[in-house]
């Protein structure tokens, strides 16, 4: 999920605080087994999400998918252990997911990348470049839908030639077009002043 522009109080909290708190709470949640405390935390997570000014349309899909997963987990755990145990686990998971949605939907993608670069900065001692890793990460997110589109086009073209189910007939043009996209994107990075030797990012 990529955050759209958000103006809630939570968007003004620095990304490092939000992700740090999420990490601490996610560990703490699994140490708590008291029902009243879990219910208070669940209510708090709902209140946070409700005040995060997130559009309902952004939440509908993820919440539907989450409900299905939680239902499966509840039934599986209930049958294997006890229904009370299943209810506790599902409450923890639900609370955690609501908090994670609140954080990810109120943090801009750039703020997340900056945080990632800071967290990954010790990797520099191992010869890795956090700025490059962050850029690769964002480009992967950017180009997955693009490659999916290219795949559909190639598959359609090969279907028209009666070769739609031939893996070679689809994969060869797909790889060639992906390489061409990579070439053009590399050229665009150059044209837009990207300095691959920059260790800190900018």
């Amino acid at each position, binding site marked *: 999920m990529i955050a759209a522009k958000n103006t809630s109080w939570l968007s003004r909290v620095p990304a490092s605080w939000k992700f740090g708190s999420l990490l601490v709470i996610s560990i703490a949640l699994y140490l708590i087994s008291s029902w009243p405390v879990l219910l208070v935390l669940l209510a708090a997570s709902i209140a946070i999400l409700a005040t995060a000014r997130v559009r309902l349309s952004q939440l509908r899909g993820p919440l539907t998918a989450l409900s299905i997963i939680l239902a499966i987990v509840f039934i599986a755990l209930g049958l294997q252990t006890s229904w009370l145990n299943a209810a506790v686990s599902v409450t923890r998971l639900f609370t955690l997911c609501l908090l994670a949605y609140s954080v990810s939907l109120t943090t801009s*993608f750039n703020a997340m990348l900056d945080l990632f670069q800071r967290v990954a900065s010790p990797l520099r001692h191992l010869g890795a470049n956090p700025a490059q890793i962050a850029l690769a990460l964002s480009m992967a997110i950017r180009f997955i839908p*693009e490659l999916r589109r290219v795949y559909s086009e190639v598959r359609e073209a090969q279907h028209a030639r009666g070769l739609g189910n031939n893996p070679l007939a689809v994969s060869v043009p797909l790889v060639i077009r992906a390489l061409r996209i990579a070439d053009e994107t590399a050229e665009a990075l150059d*044209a*837009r*002043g990207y300095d691959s030797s920059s260790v800190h990012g900018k």
Partner: protein
Amino acid sequence: MNLPQIRLENVTVTVENRDVLKNVSLTLDERRIGIIGANGAGKSTLSRLINGLVLPTQGAVYVDGLNTAKHAKKIRRDVGFVFQNPANQIIMPLVADDIAFGLKNMGLGAKERDARVQQTLAQLNIAHLADRESHTLSGGEQQMVALAAVIAMQPRTIVFDEPTTMLDLRNRLGFQREVARLPQRAIVVTHDLEILEDFDRVLVVTDGQVAFDGPADPAIAHYTQWSRA
């Protein structure tokens, strides 16, 4: 706006033993310059020489006196480039972040970046696209975002490589209108001869050489005649 002089001195570009451009010498001072020619004639190579994306095999290219072979980074801040396929030029998943990408590379702080992004989006009347995910944009919107990403860096020259090839008529006219309003120098490589009507100068490139160099009307007439021959 003070426009930088672009100078090509005896430039030859050789790729895989083939001379894509042969001994080209030019001085570009005008505000609107078109480059036309057949596929494979060397138009794109000529345009890429201007901001150092392609370096000459022989000769030299100067932008405001700076050699592209030695000062490519500096020159790219002053010469923006809009590619034929905007989808491959948009790097970031969100539109506003993509426009900010080049500004970040220039070393601008977050506040200045945000201000420039908003200003550029407003200038091109695409403020409503700021929070859109890049892959959900239409072809016309992608081309406007690609242009915004370049304009935000405030270059004095913008090179367009066949910018309207992937656009429908409505988007093409809109794009053409925005380009006409730009205070920057525009160097446009195109097959779309209508775009060139008001241009100050048009170069016709054939077989790696500039076969005609002059005002738009005679250049287009020359190219049309050459194409029919």
